[in-house]
């Protein structure tokens, strides 16, 4: 019985499912889920309420930014920029930017940032918020960082032939239809030698307990319906995807070398009220929230 319950929790791999249903090509695939857009549009005015609906995301943001900054800075230092400390001069794309929590941070760290979202309400909120900040408001005397928002999908940009040094799509895959097609569009937007950063939630009993049972139902810190368990993607599935379907990583069961990719679990510490990265290889590290960085081969 226990085994059956576990099997139920394991569920089918969302990245394979669609493949089996018959391949759609990137160009025609639409990955945007209308219900998800409606859901987030409804919540959009809460994006910047640090004590409200997106409190957890606000607290998670510094850890995600640190992970991204450190990976990118390390590669820059290894590749001829020994003094690099931030994202200065890079072109960055934030796919599914929501209210712009990550987008603003990337721009503050010096990246020329374009942020897109399929929800027009999100884009409005994000634009309104960033224009309050003199750093981004062209009419202020101290403005010197570039941040632009567009109501667009990743497919729109692929069609336009755009490519970026850094493409981020955090906490998005679990909200799209056809995640495989979505990942292909993300990958297509990365310049050769560029960085792709993804984060999502694993499809495990632990993740179900934390993100749906506790967060949505018991504690009520997230609006019910925000997460759909069956859309969660396991780290191993993501790795496999980038070994076979998009062959950026060497094949085989071994962990990818650290200069090409890194997978890290993220955990919330309720006592100190912040998120942290779990050590590499910690037990259950990749069983809930995790973040994934990898490079596109040149």
């Amino acid at each position: 019985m226990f085994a059956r319950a576990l099997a139920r929790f394991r569920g089918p791999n969302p990245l394979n499912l669609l493949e089996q249903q018959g391949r759609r090509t990137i160009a025609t695939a639409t990955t945007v889920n209308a219900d998800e857009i409606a859901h987030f549009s409804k919540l959009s005015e809460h994006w910047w309420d640090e004590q409200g609906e997106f409190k957890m995301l606000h607290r998670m943001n510094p850890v995600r930014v640190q992970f991204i900054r450190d990976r990118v800075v390390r590669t820059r230092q290894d590749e001829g920029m020994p003094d690099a400390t931030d994202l200065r001069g890079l072109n960055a794309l934030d796919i599914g930017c929501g209210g712009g929590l990550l987008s603003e941070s990337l721009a503050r760290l010096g990246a020329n940032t374009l942020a897109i979202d399929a929800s027009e309400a999100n884009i409005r909120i994000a634009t309104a918020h960033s224009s309050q900040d003199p750093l981004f408001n062209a009419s202020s005397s101290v403005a010197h960082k570039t941040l632009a928002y567009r109501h667009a999908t990743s497919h729109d940009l692929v069609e336009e032939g755009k490519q970026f040094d850094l493409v981020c799509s955090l906490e998005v895959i679990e909200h799209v239809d056809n995640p495989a097609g979505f990942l292909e569009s993300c990958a297509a937007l990365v310049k050769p030698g560029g960085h792709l950063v993804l984060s999502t939630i694993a499809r495990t009993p632990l993740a179900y307990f934390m993100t749906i049972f506790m967060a949505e139902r018991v504690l009520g810190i997230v609006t019910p319906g925000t997460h759909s368990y069956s859309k969660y993607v396991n780290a191993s599935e993501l790795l496999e995807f980038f070994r076979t379907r998009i062959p950026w990583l060497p094949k085989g069961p071994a962990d990818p070398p650290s200069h090409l990719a890194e997978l890290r679990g993220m955990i919330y510490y309720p006592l100190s009220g912040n998120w942290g990265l779990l050590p590499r290889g910690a037990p259950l590290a990749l069983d809930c929230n995790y973040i994934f960085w990898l490079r596109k081969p040149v």
Partner: protein
Amino acid sequence: MFRESFLRPTEPACAVAIESKRAIYTFNLTSVNAPDASSTRNGLYSQTYASTASVQDYDVVIVGGGPVGLALACALVSPLRRDSSLRVALIEASDLSAVRKWQPEGDSFSNRVSSITNASREFLQGIGAWDLVDESRTMAIEEMQVWDGVSDARIEFGEATLPSGRGLEMARLTENLNLQRALLRRLDNLSSPTFTILDKTKVSSIVPDTERSTWPVVHLHPSQSSGVAHQAPERREQTSPLPLRARLLVGADGPSSPVRAFSKIETYGWSYDARAIVATMVHDGNLLTSFGTPRNTTTAYQRFLPTGPIAFLPLSTTRASLVWSTTPELAQALLDAGDDVLARMVNAAFRLPDLSMRYLHQFILDRWHAAVPEVVGADGKMSKKGYLGVDEIEGEIRWRERAHSIDASSALSSLPDATTRTSSGMIPSADAEFYPPLVGHIQARSAASFPLRMAHAERYLGQGVRTALIGDAAHTTHPLAGQGLNLGLGDCQSLANAIHTAHSLGQDVGSFTALESYPRQRYLVNHGMLSAVDKLKKLYGTRNGPIVWARSVGLETINELDGLKRMFMGVAGADGDADRVVRRRTPDRDIGRSENREGISTASAEAASGHSSLGNREEVVSRLESTSHGVPTWAGMLASAVEGVAGMVDVGTRILRQRF
């Protein structure tokens, strides 16, 4: 167009006021012909739009150039990576050039002195300011003598018998001006293009920004500081400086903080109905121990009288700072009586039994009430200055000493013949070191008094208004533990860390999430200190028999049990080396102080078991908080002891209830 949905419900009403504010900005713009120095340095104002040229943008605006505000500025203005520095402005009402130019004579000391703990000093070293403090004007405290004014129960901290012959420094007495000058010098040396000081400038109002409802805009006007006005009236700008728009507005603006008022943060607390007399005391430094060796001048003394504690804090071999908390009436009477009477009374207050001190206080108050005020000075001010002669008070003290059979060779005698006795090189009695050196006189114009209150802001971060409070703007405490400034410096360190971390991660340093670690690290620590000090103050404010007994047993017990003392020192966050700070008292020196040693040791066993559980609990709290500024050494320890003995309720639960 979609901004409406963004406004909080209360805000539409502000719109009109905001519009008129804009009109004021525009007016300012036309009346100020040259932008001020800070903005031209960046060369940014020349090509900006009128609407934004009327405010200056800063990442952090600090209101208040006291020691805490200046320390925060130092911590934020980094000498490294200037290109990505935060833009920081500091506003101070007074003229800071007076602090910059402060050049006191070698043996005269300012009356505002703080004991800087080792943790605070490390922080100041880290921000490059301590090296600019004139250390020759500071004094290490290596030993403390603290005793009960009613029972004479005593506790000692410190190690005077290390093999090296040097004690371990517990804190360093430093004039506030010495520290402020060092901080200013540090900021001047950094000469950062992204940092601006606006002194002689007062905050006149703080309003939310026009469109950006959560961004505060600080309006300024020149303060009428008389000191410079007559020197160069033409240089004093008559126009107000441009308003500053702040990503983060920090209130380091003291007890009546305008930033706190803008943030709508309540404080709770109470006035102690007490004032602290401060003064610089002069004594003959040529003192000997009972062994005939030169006496340590690095000892601080504090006696808890029921009217309030009196402290002797050494500044040099012949100078010391007085902090004497007492009733407001008595403080005024002592100050009116003049420096010589004050000096005699200070000596008596460290030595005479409580009964006699009560008598002397009453004597002074009676004379003061009976005195007729006279006109003093040209401005027609009334004063009772000089209503009491030195010989009169000496006569009273002599009489009290005789009543207690204190003869001139006793350490308890404080009369002039006693002064000559000690300075003539005679070997003093064995207990001489229990009492501070006899004060000869008070440095001219150094005596003053300050009101005392305990207050704690209910929050350190404004909600949705981009503000934070530090230092006395967030909390004030009784000076008996000498912690006010140290708590403020701890705040600085924590807030600066939060700001630096957030900035390096591209976070908005004015956002609540970015700053949350600051109250998390500091609120409970500060609250613990404030309430411990508050309890000490109250506990020692009574003559009630059982309470005096309990507190005395507590003190003596801790003093005797090194293990326990060490544990408290550890809990209290002393430098890892608590062992060396705690000295075991030699039994023969106890003679004459605690008559009933049997009674005390039985009681001590009970007290000890009570303490250990308390100690563990506090240890957990302090581990949990794990900040670099733990509850400081002796005060925290004393408070813990007193708390255990008096059976007071758990601080923790009360704090938690009040906080959350």
